[in-house]
């Protein structure tokens, strides 16, 4: 097969196979050497969140993950429910994560138990790494409490090194603040420490290790800490996202905590697209998104399409109504939370993502030559005889990369995933990393299951036009 036909065939087949459904629910053991979509789907079924947490509490809610499909009738509906551990119902959804709502002790205090430990974690289908987390998951479960609670949090250290937990943004006695060496002795391996304090505020907070932060935060020891106000829910959907960034080089299986700026896995709730579950909301729902950012080095401007939102709070508390302003993008600085509220008044499938373009790439290398505008066929002719299987890429960007890899024609190192995205209803979604889809659907809607792709009303999808059509509007196509 000639270079020319191979290249064109791959492009053609990428379109043809773009919408094919893949995915099985059986547990996969070894890392795939080539990036195989089926094996990749298997590996995400072994996801630590589902396996470790759900199995212990609500076995029936084990989410059966599969990539989105353009043929919803044939596909299994993916569960989007957040597994919960505790006496109280959870009020905030943690996509791809879980919640810990506490168990009430005889004296009325709410008791939580966190165990710091090593976790095999799947960032996306085909990309798994040994991380550090709490209660068998990365990041730890979202702690939910209510203003006025007295919380009693047991922290067990099952790591090989000492650790502490800091309750980020929470007002508490200095000795409960969790700074190793300053506020307390570090929790040695095998030890369990007790943190106890009253909750005197409400809002969006976080928790994370405050001992050898560079290593322990980089490996994932973080979680969201949401405190609800005393009165009941004031929004229809309340969703928490922990933003993070990692360096997992293709062919390796442990995040590198020494990374300073070359992070290549950007996550929402420790998932990179296409590993992120979509967020389903009902039409005209009032929606609250809580973003926490414990990325080691980067801020993230998170942008939602088709809507605007109002930034209502930070980890310092609620922003007074007079100080709020509408936005479509909220900048979430590292070490901060941002809470936004919005009305889902536009039906459809809407992208939500970090607007830094390198943050919507998966495992992109940063040392490759700039191939844009390079005559790829001439390069192929020159290099292919020497390196069979070589094919020039990137001469017009990176959009073709994911589909080539996904079809298995371009073998990649073990434990690596395509630069971008996954199959969408109209072809390839050329985004990865800190990206997810927000699906606004007519009510009533089951927000705990993936509804599939939006069925656009006739005439509401951008389309190709002929020269005659364009000419009717005076647009001349020559």
């Amino acid at each position: 097969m000639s270079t020319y036909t191979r290249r064109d065939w791959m492009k053609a087949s990428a379109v043809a196979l773009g919408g094919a459904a893949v995915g099985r629910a059986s547990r996969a053991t070894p890392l795939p050497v080539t990036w195989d979509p089926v094996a990749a789907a298997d590996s995400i079924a072994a996801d630590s969140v589902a396996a470790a947490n759900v199995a212990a509490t609500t076995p029936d809610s084990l989410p059966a993950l599969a990539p989105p499909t353009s043929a919803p009738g044939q596909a299994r509906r993916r569960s989007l429910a957040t597994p919960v551990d505790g006496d109280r119902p959870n009020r905030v959804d943690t996509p791809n994560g879980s919640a810990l709502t506490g168990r009430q002790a005889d004296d009325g205090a709410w008791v939580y138990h966190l165990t710091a430990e090593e976790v095999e974690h799947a960032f996306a289908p085909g990309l798994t790494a040994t991380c550090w987390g709490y209660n068998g998951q990365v990041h730890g479960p979202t702690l939910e409490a209510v203003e006025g609670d007295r919380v009693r949090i047991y922290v067990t250290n099952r790591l090989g090194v000492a650790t502490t937990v800091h309750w980020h943004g929470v007002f508490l006695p200095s000795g409960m603040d969790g700074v190793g060496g300053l506020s307390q002795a570090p929790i040695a391996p095998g030890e369990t420490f007790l943190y106890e304090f009253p909750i005197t505020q409400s809002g969006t907070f976080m928790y994370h290790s405050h001992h050898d932060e560079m290593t322990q935060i980089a490996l994932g020891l973080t979680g969201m800490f949401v405190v609800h106000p005393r009165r009941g829910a004031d929004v229809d959907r309340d969703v928490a996202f922990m933003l993070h960034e990692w360096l997992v080089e293709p062919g390796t299986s442990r995040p590198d905590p020494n990374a300073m700026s070359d992070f290549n896995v950007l996550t929402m709730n420790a998932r990179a697209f296409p590993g992120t579950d979509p967020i389903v909301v009902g039409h005209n729902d009032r929606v609250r998104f809580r973003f926490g950012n414990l990325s080691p080095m980067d801020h993230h401007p998170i942008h939602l399409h088709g809507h605007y939102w109002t930034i209502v709070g930070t980890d310092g508390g609620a922003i007074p109504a007079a100080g709020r302003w509408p936005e479509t993008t909220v900048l979430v600085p590292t070490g901060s939370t941002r809470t936004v509220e919005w009305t889902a008044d536009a039906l459809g499938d809407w992208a939500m993502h970090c607007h830094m373009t390198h943050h919507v790439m998966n495992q992109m290398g940063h040392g490759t030559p700039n191939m844009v505008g390079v005559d790829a066929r001439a390069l192929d002719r020159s290099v292919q005889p020497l390196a069979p299987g070589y094919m020039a890429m990137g001469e017009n960007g990176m959009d073709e990369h994911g589909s080539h890899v996904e079809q298995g024609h371009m073998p990649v190192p073990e434990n690596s995933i395509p630069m971008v995205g996954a199959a969408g209803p109209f072809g390839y979604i050329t985004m990865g990393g800190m990206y997810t889809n927000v699906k606004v659907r007519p009510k009533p809607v089951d927000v705990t299951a993936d509804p599939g792709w939006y069925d656009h009303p006739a005439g509401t999808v951008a389309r190709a036009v002929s020269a005659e059509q364009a000419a009717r509007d005076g647009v001349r196509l020559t």
Partner: protein
Amino acid sequence: MTGRLPLLALVLVGLSGCTAVRPQAAFGDVQATVAERADLRAVWVTGTAEDAAARAAVDSLLTDSLTADVAVQVALLNNRRLQATYEDLGVAQAMLVQAGLLSNPVFGARGLWPAEGGAPDLGLSVAFDFLDVFARPLRQRVARSEYAAAQARVAGAVLDLAAQTRTAAIRAQADAARLAMQVRVVANAEAGYTAARLLREAGNVPAVDLLAEQALYEQARLDLLVAEGAAAESREALIRRMGLSGPQAVIPLRATLPAVPAESPLPFVRTSTEAGVPGAAVDAEAIERAAVAASLDLDARRADIEAAARRLGLTDVEALVPTLHAGAELERTDGEWEAGPDVEVALPLFDQGQARRAAGYAELRRAQALYEADAVDLRSTARTLATRLATARRAALHYQTTVLPLRAEVAAQTLRQYNAMQTGVFGVLQAQQAEAEAARRYFDALAAYWVARTDLDLLLQGRMPSLDGGALARANAPSSVPPAAH
């Protein structure tokens, strides 16, 4: 007298022994030696009808792709210098015949005419150097020793040429393979240059990157020139050994050397299955013993000693035994022929043979010293070759089983890294370059192994190889600097 002359004639016939000059018979012994030791067929082209058959054999051998075995066979049939060496056998054999011949008898006649007149006193005599008769067996033994030495040297020359041809064929094959690798390296550098040019045309790299790639490419082309020169030279060296010229000199050289066999055919080299390391150990002592037992060089030196000793014995005989001329004389006295013996004796007054004896002793001592010197060299050579073979075997096997698959895997994984957009086209080319470089080094190692094998084979066949093989195989490799990382 009538009763005596036939007796004399009988004695002469009896003494003459082997008087025929038959070097072909001697060559048969050489052929047998060579066949037994090296499984080679030597042919002496002596201007007979068999020559045509030998020429036809050469022609037919040259039609197939050329292996080292074929090259050796052609050389043995066709190398004129070797044919010239065969003539040494003729010389030695002739000398042996000469040694068996007695000096020709001296015929004398005299006539004395009395001054006062009368019948002349006529005398006829036939005189023999009788010492010749005594010394003849000794002289023949000396000549036989020299003849044996000549035979050993000719057989040695055959074995030498075979080994030299084999080595030349190995080097030519290795150089051809290295040349093929260098062609790959050039193609690789050209691809890098092309990539840089395309990137430059798209406006994506600065001029310095393009120039750097071009510099690598031009250097690779220069290295190719060197590799081509080396291949041509080693090919010519082979052609010389094979004695080819004209259209025959265009030999269809097979480009690849055989891989190192997993099981060594040499009994002394333990194979990888027996020890943990590929190629493992050699039994140098056993090789040493076998080499000493087989050595034609030592045989020749021993023959030299014997010849010197015998020459010394001969000297003693000649010096101490008075020169004795015995003959018969016919004399006519008073008209009657009388026959009677006549004896002359040289008095050992002046030359008592002391000078010749001293020279003889010196020659004996020299022959003994050379024998011992050769024995020392031989043992050391045996140990050196045993070690070299073991090392070369391990190195070549290491390339075969480990380094080359590793390099191939690195290239494959680099392509995966490329597919994962972790490295660019230059990373891919660099991995391929490293693979080609490893292959070229492998051919060096392979050549070193086969040359060491040939050298050791020659040693065990009884000839001492020159020990330049390892060094030459390494010196042939063209130098090349792998391209810098991009």
